[in-house]
């Protein structure tokens, strides 16, 4: 039992904006009206947020693990967590080890993360890694937009079957929702091709286009009642002028819920690397008039990182641009992945445009319930650098100082210098916790109301925003104090949220021959066993009664 008294509470889910309010936590780790006895934290002069929720990150699975293998030079120069009698050692950096991932997230007050890209085929592996990430709770999204069995159904116009197949896969992966990456493009990459036009048929198909996949998959997610809508990485990522692709994609989503991942990478104007500029104003305008769509920034921070995405063709291009290391994984007929270490430099005009674009989106999209803090870790920067972004959002003067360091040629390519908006603490709490929790459909997260999970972060109020957000005074996970004054106190196991969407019972036997036709493993060994999930929690579907 725990009582937190005297703190200024920022709880956007309950429209509490800095009022002083006590918070009580029971022995089950839930927020309650009152408690008798137990420890009291005097939070006078402190700021209380719901624990952070990362709506889009890559922390586990085959691709992240490949990135770890590729970057020993980074492991050597990064944070090393020293073993104690009860706590495992770990390394931070661009591709942190599982244990360090938990320490670093909790260390800055994040208590829930959404692993945004899980191939079904390696879901078993991903869950094993997630079980080794302590403290934080997790959700996972299954990669579907390049799955050949699903695509075949869509090509044949068999919507119901496609829907059943998707539902079957989500449960086979013991996952929480659907991720679509470069629809059709990853499948085409197996032929060394890509899919950049939403209306052109995909390599290997006669009529199926990326646009059709986008619309059908969004419909499927809605019809299945998934708590989180389709989570979409649009086609043509990273390319100059891709704003037209992105807006075209959004048109295919009219009338549906959707979450657009890392929209910074999809908001460029120009027609080549020389003319590339920010087109965030157009994209923000779309969001401002379409409240059914949410997004996360995918902001870029200058420095070293490693890029990991299922977008294989893009990664090959990036490898050719950088001439550095490149890893590629093909996941049979489901998806693929590319890994390229990368350094974002302020002196590089393209990188400078990317840096500005991420911030512009967060500032130009008016409703903080629609745009969330993310770097698409580790693609735009490491998640443990989020406090730097918060500082950039909250301090216009600091932003101006940073803009001044960019090359002169940046003028006219970005709109950031014209933006004066500064995030309030209430908006930060919305963008890093309440908003992403709501978008994910995690009703018990990002919310300090009675009955919710007691995941709470308490900051000592100070002027140095970056310092404040990177050094919480207390972090509480499920009612337990896990971080106190920067010290890791406890490393409890996290939980995983799952959904079981409904599918026609005959789907299993329908899938069997299709599966046996193209997979290299046995159908009966394919679905991840529920017993393998550490502390699973079934999340209800949003079905109309």
């Amino acid at each position, binding site marked *: 039992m725990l009582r937190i008294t005297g703190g200024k509470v920022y709880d956007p889910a309950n429209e509490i904006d800095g009022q002083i309010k006590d918070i009580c936590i029971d022995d089950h780790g839930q927020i309650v009206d009152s408690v008798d006895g137990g420890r009291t934290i005097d939070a006078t002069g402190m700021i209380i947020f719901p624990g952070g929720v990362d709506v889009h990150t890559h922390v586990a699975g085959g691709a992240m693990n490949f990135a770890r293998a590729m970057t020993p030079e980074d492991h050597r120069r990064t944070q090393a967590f020293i*073993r104690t009698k009860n706590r*495992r*050692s770990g390394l931070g950096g661009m591709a942190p080890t599982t244990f360090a991932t938990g320490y670093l997230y909790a260390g800055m007050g994040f208590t829930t993360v959404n692993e945004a890209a899980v191939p079904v085929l390696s879901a078993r592996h991903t869950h*094993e890694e997630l079980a*080794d990430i302590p403290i934080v709770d997790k959700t996972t999204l299954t990669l579907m937009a390049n799955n050949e069995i699903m695509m075949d159904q869509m090509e044949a116009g068999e919507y119901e079957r496609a829907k059943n197949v998707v539902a079957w896969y989500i449960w086979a992966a013991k996952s929480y929702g659907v991720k679509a990456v470069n629809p059709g493009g990853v499948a085409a990459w197996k032929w060394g091709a890509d899919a950049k036009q939403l209306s052109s048929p995909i390599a290997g198909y006669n009529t199926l286009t990326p646009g059709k996949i986008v619309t059908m998959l969004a419909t499927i997610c809605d019809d299945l009642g998934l708590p989180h809508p389709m989570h979409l990485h649009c086609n043509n990522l990273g390319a100059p002028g891709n704003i037209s692709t992105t807006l075209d994609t959004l048109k295919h989503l009219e009338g549906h819920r959707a979450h657009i991942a890392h929209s910074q990478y999809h908001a460029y104007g120009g027609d080549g690397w020389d003319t590339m500029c920010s087109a965030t104003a157009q994209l923000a305008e779309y969001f401002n008039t379409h409240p059914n769509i949410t997004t996360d920034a995918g902001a870029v921070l200058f420095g070293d990182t490693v890029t990991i995405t299922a977008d294989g063709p893009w990664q090959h291009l990036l490898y050719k641009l950088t001439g550095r290391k490149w890893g590629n994984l093909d996941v049979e007929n489901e998806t693929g992945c590319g890994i390229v270490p990368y350094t974002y430099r302020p002196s590089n005009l393209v990188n400078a445009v990317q840096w500005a674009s991420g911030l512009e989106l967060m500032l130009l999209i008016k409703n903080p319930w629609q745009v969330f803090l993310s770097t698409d870790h580790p693609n735009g920067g490491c998640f443990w650098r989020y406090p730097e972004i918060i500082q950039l959002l909250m301090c216009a003067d600091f932003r101006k100082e940073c803009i001044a360091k960019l090359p002169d040629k940046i003028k006219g390519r970005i709109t950031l210098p014209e933006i004066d908006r500064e995030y309030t603490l209430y908006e930060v709490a919305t963008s890093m916790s309440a908003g992403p929790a709501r978008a994910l459909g995690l009703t018990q997260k990002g919310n300090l109301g009675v009955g919710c999970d007691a995941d709470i972060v308490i900051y000592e109020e100070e002027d140095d925003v970056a310092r404040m957000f990177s050094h919480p005074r207390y972090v509480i996970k499920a009612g337990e104090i896990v971080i106190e004054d920067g010290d890791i106190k406890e490393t409890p196991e996290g939980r995983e949220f799952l959904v079981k969407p409904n599918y026609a019972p005959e789907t299993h036997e329908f899938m069997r021959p299709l599966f046996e036709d193209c997979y290299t*493993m*046995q159908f*009966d*060994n394919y679905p991840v066993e529920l017993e393998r999930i550490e502390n699973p929690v079934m999340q209800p579907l949003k079905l109309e009664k």
Partner: protein
Amino acid sequence: MTLQVIDNATCTFCGCVCDDIQLHHDEMRIYKAKKACVLGTAWFLNHTAEKKYPDALIDGKEATVEEAIQMAATLLHEADMPLVYGMSNTTCEAQKECVAMADQLGALLDSHTSL
């Protein structure tokens, strides 16, 4: 005698890890490993559940598992630079325990890959 059958069993003899093997067994011995290759068949049929070896040996003398565990813990704990090595022919679950052991001991940790 009717044998029990396990479908889609997994063979861990080589790196192919074929998971389509059908095993016919009586809990003591495997009599048939359908679909397995010549190497896999030998792997499955050569192991039995008989008690061929002592539970444990300490300095060549038979011991209980518990005695051997205590002895192992003492020897590893006393060492200034212990080594944890191997992990090829074992399960992921055991491998995780081995990494935990090296972490807990401050040891060297290595697998066949380095050969």
